């Protein structure tokens, strides 16, 4: 396993985890009047950094922002938030599975076929 893909996946896990926390906060405030949901972005930054090398990837941090007032996104939609929660958990699971496969291959390379 080259180091780059491991760092990328760990950063993706960080970003997805941050999104799950923000989604939990949004759903918890479903009955707060005037609440504007939090949004987490990291995918584009991660994709850009992947082209530049390991140091750039390591510097990527998930960005948490409140939806700007007046945009359609500023209104909390609980159904969409539930979708985000399920989607984020699913993607987190998928990344962990891929990470495990790579670790398994690495382990096979070390121990041989036994």
């Amino acid at each position, binding site marked *: 396993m080259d180091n780059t893909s491991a760092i990328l996946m760990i950063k993706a896990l960080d970003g997805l985890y941050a999104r799950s926390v923000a989604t939990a906060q949004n759903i918890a405030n479903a009955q707060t009047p005037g609440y504007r949901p939090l949004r987490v972005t990291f995918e584009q930054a991660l994709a850009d950094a992947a082209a530049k090398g390991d140091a750039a990837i390591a510097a990527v941090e998930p960005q948490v922002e409140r939806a700007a*007032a007046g945009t359609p996104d500023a209104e909390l939609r609980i159904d969409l938030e539930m979708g985000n929660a399920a989607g984020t958990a699913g993607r*987190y699971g998928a990344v962990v599975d891929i990470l495990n496969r790579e670790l398994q291959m690495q382990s096979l390379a070390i121990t041989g076929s036994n």
Partner: protein
Amino acid sequence: MQAMEISRTALDVEWRRIEIASQNLANINSAAGPSGAVYRARHLLSGPAGDFASHLENGSAADLHALRGVAVTGIVEDNAPPRLVHEPGNPAADANGMVAYPAIDHAQEMLTLVQSSRVYEANVVAMNAARQIYTKALEIGRHS
């Protein structure tokens, strides 16, 4: 475990809201007692816990670690005048034979009950999604 703690705060707040709505409905026919005080409908106020300042800023970056979910900010009493009913035979009646009953909006309380139960359920689902993430994280590096 931050995501689960956030959902937990919402379960607590919605539970309290349901309790207060039930209390209001339970007292819908409570006439004023000998002391003359009529039960007043209560409403629970809630808002984001902790990060109140960042909640007000427009499109601002938020500190993820400062998120604490939701909290009860207060309970207010409805100051609507009591509902007066002519019941001369009632021991709680005044000199004119009128009995004061609390002014409780039945439909409003039912709406609160339904809304809060739905939001409660939504937070249970969110908590399960977070639990799934934490469980999956434990599988990193495990041989399958």
